[in-house]
């Protein structure tokens, strides 16, 4: 197993290098130039020339690629944003936790609701419950996240205003609330700019986690109330997919002979479903969940935009619009790494769930 994992990790290196090169080339193939995006419409040609020279954008693309690869491979430096003059790594530290918190919240809802929905649909095949569930799943897949987000915000933030059910329409936290980072609370005295500080900063940007370990319960509640609506909005599509896959997989398994045998032996129906059928039906469901998790790393542009969350998706979208190459490249690598890690975890989980699978 360990050899298999090591081999998989080593295989990711050429994949990431390939992604770096491809992203670099594609980003620079987009029409338009970073100068106009950064300096605005009033920028003169002379100003743009000076800007491009300052940023190294006037060099041949091969030279730019060489410099970029050298900085990443030797220093682990993604460079500075063209538009914001800030290290891309710092921006990843700020943005990725938001995306992960949103994504996993949505996935939590999707699994928690989607799997039982699929199981119930399969067990009560062709019943009113089954039809209703599948119709609901189709609606969930079809519903535009943008519209759903606005509707949720309208209902919970405006119609239910001044009731206990009120939820904030946008934002990660209430305006003006800035939680204390755990390293400040604990007085760790980390030096700004060091790797340890950056890691601690990254961890502290997970608002839920940071609030729990520092006992900032009011922040935790506030963060939770702000995350409900975007998580629901983002969960509808994976929830529907998970429900449908679970249903079809369960239907397949429920028709197998060993399930009939279990029932014939007088095993309780709940045990038949949960132990004998569901566990064997989970493989395709886990594959789908893995794909969804990978997707979550790329952020959810529409959800983040609708709910004013500054995550990876929004940052990537803005960077593409603004031709901010370092951000595009840096964030894409992070997203790719996310996919690779998730795929690895999915493969490992197969072995755990299905003992017949032997990883060599």
């Amino acid at each position, binding site marked *: 197993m360990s050899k298999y994992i090591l081999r998989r990790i080593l295989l990711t290196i050429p994949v990431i290098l390939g992604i770096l090169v491809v992203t670099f080339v594609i980003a620079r193939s987009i029409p*338009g130039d970073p100068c106009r995006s950064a300096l605005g419409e009033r920028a003169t040609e002379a*100003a*743009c020339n000076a800007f491009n020279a300052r940023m190294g954008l006037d060099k041949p693309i091969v030279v730019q690629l060489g410099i970029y690869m050298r900085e990443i491979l030797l220093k682990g430096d993604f460079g500075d944003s063209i538009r914001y*003059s800030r290290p891309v790594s710092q*921006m990843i530290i700020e943005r990725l936790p938001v995306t992960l918190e949103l994504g996993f919240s949505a996935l939590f809802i999707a699994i928690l609701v989607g799997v039982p929905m699929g199981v119930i649909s399969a067990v009560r095949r062709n019943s009113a419950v089954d039809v209703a569930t599948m119709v609901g799943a189709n609606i969930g897949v079809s519903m535009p996240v943008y519209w759903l987000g606005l509707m949720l915000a309208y209902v919970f933030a405006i119609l239910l205003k001044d009731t206990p059910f009120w939820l904030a*329409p946008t934002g990660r936290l209430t*305006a003006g609330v*800035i939680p204390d980072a755990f390293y400040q609370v604990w007085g760790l005295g980390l030096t700004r700019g060091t790797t340890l500080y950056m890691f601690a900063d990254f961890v502290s940007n997970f608002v839920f986690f940071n609030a729990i370990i520092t006992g900032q319960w009011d922040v935790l509640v506030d963060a939770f109330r702000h995350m409900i609506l975007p998580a629901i909005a983002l969960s509808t599509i994976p929830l529907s997919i998970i429900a449908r896959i679970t249903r079809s997989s369960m239907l397949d398994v429920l028709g197998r002979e060993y399930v009939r045998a279990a029932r014939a032996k007088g095993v309780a129906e709940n045990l038949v479903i949960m132990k004998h059928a569901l566990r064997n039906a989970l493989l395709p469901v886990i594959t789908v969940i893995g794909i969804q998790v990978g997707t979550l790393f790329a952020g959810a542009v529409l959800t983040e*935009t609708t709910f004013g969350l500054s995550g990876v998706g929004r940052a990537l979208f803005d960077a593409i619009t603004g031709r901010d190459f370092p951000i595009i490249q840096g964030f894409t690598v992070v997203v790719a790494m996310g996919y690779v890690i998730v795929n690895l975890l999915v493969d490992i989980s197969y072995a755990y769930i299905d003992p017949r699978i032997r990883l060599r």
Partner: protein
Amino acid sequence: MKKLSTLFALLVAFSLVLAACGSGGTAVQDEFSALAEFEGLKLDAGSCDYGGKVLSIEAVDELTVVFTLCKPDPAFEAKIAFTPFGIQPQEHLARTGGSGELLENPIGTGPYQVAEWDRGNQIVYTRFDDYWGESNGASTVTLRWLTEGAARLQELQAGTADYVSNISPSDYATVQNDPNLQILYHQNPNVFYIGFTNTASPYDNVDVRRAIALGIDYQRIVDNFYPDGSEVASHFTPCAIPNGCEGESWYEFDAEAGRALLAEAGYPDGFTTRLYYRDVFRVYLPEPARVATEIQAQLQENLGITVEVVPMESGEFIAASTSGELTDGMHLLGWGADYPHVTNFMDFHFGANNPQFGNAHAEIYGPLQEASSIADVATAAPLYAEANNAVKELVPLIPVAHGAAAHAALASLQGAYYPPFGAPQFNFLNNGTDSLVFVQNAEPISLDCADETDGESLTACQQVVETLLEYGKDSGATFPELATSCDANADSTVWTCHLRDGVKFHDGSDFDADDVVASWARGLDASNPYHVGNTGSFDYYGYLWDSFMNVPAE
């Protein structure tokens, strides 16, 4: 070329001469002694050969700064009130090296100071208790941003924001009909126009351009694609700008006359052309794609001209259109005022060296050049009339509309306003609590607004950093801010700004004339060690004052 010198040596030498001569009363000597204590900074270009408008800026005493210009600039006061020309302490500029911390922690004299910038989420300001001016604002103000107009409005309706900028035109009625909200119309002068490049057929023929000007139903465009408060353009420059509407009004829609003129020009059956645009929302053109399609339909129906609509990426479009490369078609573009002066509209577009519309017309830029050195509005009026009439005659472009925007606030917010220039000052907004939330379109890029051009950054900076003069709440007129007055000499080439006494920066230091010179030198002098900023472009310094000093040779 640049000399950062002091008066000290000169004054000492002069005092010694006076003493040696045995002349000069005690009063004069005392005055010189007082002066000798102040070592004023001076930014000096040495000559005007570098091509810019500013010859020197000098701190002659602690509370007096003298701007010496290369030529008269009637827009001087309007320009120096613009947020990029805000003043920060010279020590802060030096300590930060003109970048780094300066990008997120500006130190100014304004009513609010930045407490924290929670990147991606919000900027929290706290009230500056030593502010020199009036402050009715909340003790804490949070600036947030949401890109979607609908989401911004929901924040207001939910009661989680007090003021939101730029509501969507489709939401005007919602705000107007909600007793808990107030709508704030915003008349920032702007113009949407159809541009031609006259270096290629058929647009090298003035009759073709005139025919198109006659063949467009302007009112229909405004009625169908613009929000309330917008209007058909009677001139290129909006009438809110003094001298903007001198001269004859633009052509009325007359399809028949247009067709006749097109036939005279040799195109009785029209011709085939292109219409370039970028699909980017601007107040002057809120619905680019739909307006482009409308113009396409109108030209086909009214003049028989077949138009291919070509959307372009924004940056590429700006680069191609402003450099005059779009010779095989028309282009849709516009302009929003940077500062409240007719030169901002006319001189930029119709100057002798602007390639956007092809060959420049002396009939237009001649009177503009003459007018640009006349400070008195009435004296310059006939020249602007001449220039506007020439624009109408030669049709380098077709002014179509002046767009309007609107913002919204809670009805309970006292003092809510949106000025024509700049952004609302938070210290004038009062919701009766200690906390106020203002939501705008986007996150500021940085808070070093000497080197930023986007409105979102300027709004954020304006609360912190102040300029010598400020714009009015309801007009582009200028009023004292850090300067109690700026007086011009007879030909408006020397401006003496008298600074407000007793003003403190947020770091507790005293504001004086050296801070003014240091802040301006940083932006205007390319060789200044603190000319770093965010991108290092300092666009408005180069653009509004024609050139940087000491630009290194390429």
